[in-house]
């Protein structure tokens, strides 16, 4: 059997030490009626080459975005993963270590988390960040629970432009806690309808969620909303794309109390949407209500700099039913990748990343806007993602483009119903060359002709 070492002699000697005849005797503690005598109804074991062949064939049945020309985004982005990032994080010292409960034998993991917290803190300009969450969606959901706990209120206002998948997860998370999620409509400009928000603010509102860029790629103006939100005694929860923070005003500078987001774009594969890695940052005052692990700098008994898990009394293994969250295992290795990625790009490279993404998206929007029958749905500024109004339904545009090996974008009707059927969400990143844009524009033009024909 693979991955065990015992020789027959070993087994015999070990059983002898236990005074047993056979390994079967060890299982006597399971009542007879429950003991399986036959093997499970799955195939018997295979060799490594056999397994590789089988899984390789399954991989070949996929047409991955990375082998096509893809303009898909919607929270998951195809950015270059530098070789150094892959190399470092494939090291068994990081990949096969456990949660750093014994700090003396886990300084590597602990310092990486500390650097991750620092990266997130600087990107968001909030003083505190945790060690990671499952994904951007659950990070937002936990932020809603946290805000309700801090304010002892029960309504969370969410914009109609929130990533619909985040909304779905937030609904599941708050279901048991009698917290109500109320939707704020989207203005004609594609951002939050500020007047409608103002009408909904009252002393039951725990938090207002602002996602920027929002699902339609539109940049919000949280600084116009924060006074009203705070005057009503509610918290401002910002859901942000960390890559956009290379260029955009950070949440800490417009009064956000909690910031959350998805770190997949920071050096992690798309991997069919998982594993992902969320982050959470907050103001100093809320540190003890924060979910998830935290690492603090400290000293060892010899006065050397060291790192350690801290404020564990918030956590489930100590606090049990009074814990701030039930989160235990999080997304350590993906957070490690994000840490190395941000360190490697650094101030200069990370700024470049934002600028190039934006330049690419802006150029593509211009090209598409100039095509017959196509226009941009919103005039508001965007970062690297925007909504295109098609002359026909987006599904048929997508189908035409797919025949040319192009993934044109996400059809908004998938989430927003039939009224959005002509709308297509398009993303550009640093990986797109001008020839990719030509391919997409060519496909869009043909799709428009199909309609006319």
């Amino acid at each position, binding site marked *: 059997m693979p991955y065990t070492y015992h020789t027959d002699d070993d087994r015999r000697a070990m059983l002898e030490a236990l005074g047993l005849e056979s390994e079967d005797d060890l299982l006597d503690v399971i009542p007879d009626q429950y003991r399986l005598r036959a093997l499970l109804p799955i195939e018997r074991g295979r060799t490594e080459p056999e397994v590789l062949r089988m*899984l390789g064939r399954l991989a070949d049945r996929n047409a991955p975005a990375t082998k096509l020309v893809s303009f898909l985004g919607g929270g998951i982005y195809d950015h270059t993963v530098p070789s150094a990032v892959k190399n470092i994080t494939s090291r068994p010292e990081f990949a096969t270590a456990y949660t750093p409960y014994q700090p003396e034998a886990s300084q590597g993991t602990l310092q990486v988390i500390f650097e991750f917290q620092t990266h997130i803190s600087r990107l968001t300009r909030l003083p505190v960040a945790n060690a990671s969450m499952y994904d951007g969606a659950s990070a937002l959901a936990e932020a809603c629970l946290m805000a309700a706990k801090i304010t002892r209120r029960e309504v969370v206002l969410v914009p109609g432009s929130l990533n619909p998948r985040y909304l779905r997860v937030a609904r599941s998370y708050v279901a048991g806690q009698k917290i109500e999620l109320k939707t704020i409509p989207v203005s004609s400009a594609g951002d939050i309808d500020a007047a409608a928000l103002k009408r909904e603010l009252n002393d039951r509102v725990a938090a207002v969620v602002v996602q920027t860029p929002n699902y339609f790629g539109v940049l919000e103006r949280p600084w116009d909303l924060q006074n009203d939100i705070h005057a009503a005694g509610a918290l401002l929860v910002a859901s942000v794309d960390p890559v956009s923070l290379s260029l955009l005003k950070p949440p800490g500078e417009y009064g956000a109390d909690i910031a959350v987001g998805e770190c997949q774009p920071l050096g992690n594969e798309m*991997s069919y*949407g998982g594993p992902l890695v969320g982050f959470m940052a907050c103001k100093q005052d809320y540190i003890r209500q924060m979910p998830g692990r935290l690492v603090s700098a400290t*000293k060892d008994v010899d006065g050397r700099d060291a790192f350690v898990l801290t404020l564990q009394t918030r*956590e489930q293994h100590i606090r049990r039913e009074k814990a701030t969250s039930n989160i235990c295992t*999080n997304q350590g290795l993906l957070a490690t990748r994000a840490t190395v990625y941000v360190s490697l790009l650094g101030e200069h490279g990370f700024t470049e990343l934002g600028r190039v993404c934006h330049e690419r998206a802006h150029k593509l929007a211009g090209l598409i806007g100039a095509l017959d029958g196509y226009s941009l749905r919103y005039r508001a500024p965007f970062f690297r993602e925007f909504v295109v109004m098609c002359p026909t339904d987006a599904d048929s545009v997508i189908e035409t483009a797919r025949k040319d090996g192009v993934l044109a974008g996400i059809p908004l009707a998938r989430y927003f119903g039939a009224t959005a059927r002509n709308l297509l969400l398009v993303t550009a990143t640093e990986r797109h060359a001008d020839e990719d844009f030509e391919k997409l524009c060519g496909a869009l033009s043909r799709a428009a002709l199909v309609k006319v024909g």
Partner: protein
Amino acid sequence: MAANDFSQTIYGKSRRGRHGYHIASRPTEAPRDIPREYLREGRIGLPEVSEPQVMRHYVDLSIKNHHIDRDLFPLGSCTMKYNPKVNEDVAAMPGFAGLHPEQSDDDAQGALAVMHALEQALVAVSGMDAVSAQPAAGAQGEMLGLLLARAYFSDRGESRHKVLVPDTAHGTNPATASIVGFETKTFASGKDGRVDLDVLRATLDDDVAVLMLTVPNTLGLFETQIGDIVELVHKKGGLCYMDGANMNALMGQARPGDFGFDMMHFNLHKTFSTPHGGGGPGSGPVAVRSHLEPFLPIPRVIEKDGAYHLEYQRPKSVGALHSFFGNFGIYLRAYTYMTRLGSDGIRRASSTAILNANYLAKRVSSHYPVPFGERCMHEFVATGEPLKKHGVKTLDVAKRLLDFGFYAPTIYFPLVVPEALMVEPTETESRETLDRFAEALLRIAQEAVDTPDVLTSAPTRTPVRRVDEASANRNPILTVPMDS
């Protein structure tokens, strides 16, 4: 004591104007079409280091970690087994790693086939009727289980408020109950460390929604009266949830579905060998009996005539817990592992895990008694109580083990054993390793008599020695300050 200077962090190695990785081949400009009020002013404050510096920095950090490819990781309830390398090769295949989750089902047939096959394999292992692999970790699996229970009772027009857990339960059980809006009621284990039917009977009432039980329990003991336990709860109209953290003891030997459980979660990162990554990513698939299937999260992977699709139209579903379909990359690793082992290997793995735990318990119990009997399943809980008279605590034993190149067992849990050492060697350790570990523990017991100072001042051979957790708790320093 001097304050932390952070010179050894990546920020301490930064020099203004130094470049790491370039995204653009020529100089870039600030965006002109975004109004200024939207833009960040000034520097972000990220480090400026070269690629070789980054490599050396993180390689240097990495070697400060203990990890399973170096030596034993005997953490009870964590199942730190060897992580096969072929799993990583499969997860990195471009056909899988390069898939975007918004691609059509047609473009993702191979991925959907793996998700479906994994769920079916887990159906077989659990003896349940359906599996949703979506939860991102065991604790999220527990959350799904309780959401399912809530939806199930609400569908039947019932309202129940309590979750029962024994005092040996993992902390995630009560924490999850609170998150989902249930009230936790903890009941005492019996003298033999198992559920006492009389205590359970006295604790049960019509307001109990779910009993959460870990099998084998955190003492490494099988609940021999499991059938009666489940029946008691069912008679009161409640549901039974199995915390599957310890499935490494059961896989291929017995099935939770046969015990009568209504639902359970797996930890793919424990039982099915996916790497822990210093704290994730995990994966916590949930298996259910058919009466709970309508409530499983969306989307479901459906197979029809050899083609697969994701189904979202499930009116009774509890919704979603993950942005997309859960930790797909972890499914690949776990499925690769299960395929590699097969039905025969899975059975052999669990029986070997049990053999290893019993052998190790036998070797150390002379000095570290095992209060709840020596016949355990995949893990055992010993006590460091006898060393206390020498002024040595279990914590000291744990720290001294680090000096011997091992990681420490789980300590001070479960709470029903004083000075607890919870040891789970797993099936992937050789007899020589088990012997080496046993000898280290026995030597430590002797050191407690001869040179207790060595233990109370351990470790000395690790990159740092005991760290000051108290001051970190009083005054946590969570980031490198802006000016360093």
